[in-house]
């Protein structure tokens, strides 16, 4: 029904919606001007912004002021339970220690080259032979002073108990399943007997997926560790609010000290919010309700930097986590033909993928992290080193398809799903477009996220091709990133691509048996073999963006702030007197 007021009202509504929509994209409106002649309102800022980041935020971190005690650090994460027997999350390392941990994470440039192990509960280790390892424990380490453990000393018996309790749990299986038996040599010495020789076994007890040390009394008390969250860590769990967050307070008896002999941690407390929405995270950061967060894309980073100009940004090339790739059904035609795989890889213009996924702020990615192939600089992860299979060459791709018996291409299905932190939607459309240019007709099939997780995790087969990040390792370990993921003796839940290549198996087995001298050459040979065979199509990996408020510092590990990945660095963080005053009597304050 038309009324005299209909038109002005409709115009008012349109104007309101447009006003709201335009004001919600400040990145586009307030972009710094670029000199590029072909700059468009959308793509405008990215090159200039990336250049600005390169100059304003170089790789070396800002010089921090002297440490200061006090303050409550707040950050977002998703944790369902604070019980290491029920599920693994890196944040658990705030309460429970592992035998050793990375000094900073392997995500950062210097650590990617020279990982440093921090001696936490173990102070030294010795390889008796590749199947027998002895670890000496730190003396005087006490569990949190809470019943039923009441601050008793941690000993070798606790290490044996914890490893036997946790080594078969799925979340720790990658690292601990190798251990056959554990012996208590004396109160502060444990001996590990391995099922297979491993000259680098000490890397398997460095945090991330290696068993934490728990006291038997707390596990066996009513409610287990969920009700008695007692460890040796820098913080003690004060309150767990399911679905909302967790409050951890300083462990006054923590054993680690900083380089000047001051007791750690500096912070009074840590409050974690269990957020599930990116808009919530950014709003919390802008409102100074959280002090640090991981930023998923350049666009979000841009918007945040315009509204919180004094934030500290840590922008670091990825070691390998978070790439964009496609897994193929290698046991079926046409993907069992190496020429088809090479053609599909060559059909993709990775520079365009980087532009679309993250406005060009991304680097190439190949079979596994560059460092593990023996390269010394991140820039070595280049088209030249990756070779022709990674270079855009649709003409050659068509020739290879024709040689493989597909002169007119073929039809295939590419499965994908929405997954927090990734932009697979754009990625699969791009892949489909590139493949169609060489005659491969792609039907995109969106999956429910949980189903997609099952398929990429190897628990359920995918049909033909599936968009997925490469399986990752829990540290800078070739075992994690390559051996387990490519050796045919492992099931699909480990060797997720289902690779069955006798030559590759031979290389990997030789690597496994080697005492260490020939390993770098063998790793390079594996790299060469994988980039030639393209078992998984990898493209690009965006850098990690981590931002903090201006008043937060993280001791010697300024980069180590990816919530959910190395938040245990809270033990070495401090906040200046500019930080907001926060109470920590209870979670809801």
């Amino acid at each position: 029904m038309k009324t005299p007021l209909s038109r002005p009202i409709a115009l008012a509504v349109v104007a309101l919606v447009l006003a709201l929509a335009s004001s919600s994209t400040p990145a586009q409106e307030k972009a710094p001007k670029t000199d590029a002649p072909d700059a468009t309102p959308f793509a405008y800022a990215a090159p200039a912004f990336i250049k600005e980041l390169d100059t304003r935020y170089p790789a070396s971190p800002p010089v921090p002021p002297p440490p200061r005690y006090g303050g409550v650090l707040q950050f977002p994460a998703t944790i369902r339970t604070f019980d290491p027997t029920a599920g693994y999350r890196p944040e658990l390392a705030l309460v429970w220690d592992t035998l050793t941990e990375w000094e900073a994470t392997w995500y950062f440039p210097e650590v990617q080259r020279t990982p440093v192990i921090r001696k936490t509960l173990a102070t030294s280790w010795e390889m008796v032979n590749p199947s027998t390892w002895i670890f000496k424990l730190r003396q005087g380490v006490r569990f949190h002073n809470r019943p039923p453990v009441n601050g008793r000393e941690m000993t070798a018996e606790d290490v044996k108990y914890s490893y036997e309790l946790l080594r078969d749990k799925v979340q720790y299986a990658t690292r601990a399943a190798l251990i056959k038996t554990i012996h208590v040599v004396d109160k502060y010495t444990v001996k590990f007997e391995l099922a297979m020789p491993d000259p680098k076994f000490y890397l398997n007890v460095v945090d991330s997926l290696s068993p934490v040390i728990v006291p038997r009394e707390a596990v066996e008390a009513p409610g287990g560790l969920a009700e008695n969250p007692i460890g040796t860590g820098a913080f003690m769990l004060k309150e767990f609010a399911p679905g909302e967050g967790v409050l951890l307070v300083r462990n006054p008896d923590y054993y680690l000290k900083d380089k000047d002999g001051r007791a750690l941690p500096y912070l009074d407390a840590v409050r974690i919010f269990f957020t599930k929405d990116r808009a919530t995270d950014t709003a919390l950061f802008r409102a100074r309700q959280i002090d640090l967060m991981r930023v998923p894309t350049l666009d979000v980073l841009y918007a945040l930097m315009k509204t919180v100009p004094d934030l500290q940004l840590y922008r670091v090339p990825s070691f390998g986590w978070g790439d964009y790739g496609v897994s193929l059904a290698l046991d079926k035609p046409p993907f069992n033909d190496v020429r088809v795989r090479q053609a599909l890889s060559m059909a993709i213009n990775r520079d365009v993928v980087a532009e679309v996924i993250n406005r060009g702020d991304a680097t190439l990615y190949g079979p596994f992290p560059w460092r593990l192939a023996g390269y010394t600089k991140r820039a070595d992860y280049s088209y030249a080193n990756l070779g022709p299979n990674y270079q855009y060459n649709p003409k050659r791709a068509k020739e290879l398809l024709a040689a493989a018996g597909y002169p007119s291409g073929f039809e295939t299905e590419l499965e994908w799903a929405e997954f927090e932190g990734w932009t697979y939607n754009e990625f699969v459309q791009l892949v489909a477009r590139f493949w169609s240019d060489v005659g491969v007709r792609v039907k995109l099939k969106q999956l429910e996220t949980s189903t997609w997780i099952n398929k990429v995790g190897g628990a359920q087969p995918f049909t033909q091709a599936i968009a997925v990040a490469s399986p990752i390792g829990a540290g800078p370990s070739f075992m994690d990133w390559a051996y387990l993921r490519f050796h045919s003796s492992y099931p699909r839940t480990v060797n997720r691509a289902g690779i069955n290549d006798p030559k590759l198996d031979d290389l990997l087995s030789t690597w496994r048996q080697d005492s260490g001298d020939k390993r770098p050459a063998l790793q390079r040979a594996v790299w060469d073999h994988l980039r030639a065979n393209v078992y998984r199509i990898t493209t690009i990996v965006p850098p990690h963006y981590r931002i903090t408020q201006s008043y937060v510092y993280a001791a010697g590990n300024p980069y180590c702030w990816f919530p959910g990945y190395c938040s245990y660095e809270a033990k070495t963080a401090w906040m200046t007197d500019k930080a907001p005053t926060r109470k920590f009597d209870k979670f809801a304050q």
Partner: protein
Amino acid sequence: MRTYIARRVVQGLLVLWLVSFAVFSLVRILPGDAVLMQLDAAAAPTPEQLARARQELGLDRPFLEQYRTWMSGVAHGDLGRSLITRRPVTQELAKRISLTSHLAVMSMMVALLIALPIGVLAAVRQDTPADYVGRLGAILGLSLPDFWLATVVITFLAIWFHWIPPIGFAPIWQDPARNLSQLLIPAVIIGARLAAVSMRMTRSSLLEVLRQDYVVTARAKGARERTVIVRHALKNAFIPVVTIIGQQFSVLLGGTVIVEFIFLQPGVGSLLLDAVLLRDYTIIQGAVLFFAVVIVAMNLLVDLSYSWLDPRIRYR
């Protein structure tokens, strides 16, 4: 009336049993399980280790045996333990129900405070500017998705005022000021949509009643317009409105997930969504059973309210 209520209660119990069986069966058809869904991206377990983990959670037992064990617990008030957190489901649900109830009641109050006066005004002053403004507001309320509104509101609150509603739920009887500052904005966002639906229903229902013979008679007898509307028309016009409100209240208990996520106020809806994504069967079963109980109870209450609103309605 008592016979009617007893019959409805028995029917309700039957519905609950069917719901329990349906949800117990359907969640197990979904691909994947709790063991797989909580694995870290870097984890690489073998099938044997996965099988052992499933055994620990009792997922390897026959379907009917699992169902019998669960129902036996339900009959004794024990909904089992979460497969992810290992905490009792009743404990997981309790706090979420409290938050969801607060949010639902507050949203409904906001909705009614907006919808009823505007709906009545729009009906009484049909085709006047007041009516147009009311209808425009209703269309806006229906058109703006609450997730979009919530995102815009939280973003601009943070940018302009460097403030967002506090995190960490406090019941209204413990800390009324904190509770209101937490829930008022989400309640207004959710309530805006409900208000639109209720306002339109109030308006159309009242318009229909105002054309009834007994309203004309009341006016002809010289009753004041306010008396005609409030005493004669409004009560009868409320029957469809109450039906809508009852339905909406049931939906509210589980349908505010996105707003819950955005404002970090985790209620039963977000617990259920999380549980579905993680295949936490026991939480799904407990939460769905809770929703079923609420819906059955709300329907009964709505039906009973009809006889109060219109004395001509009798239940036997």
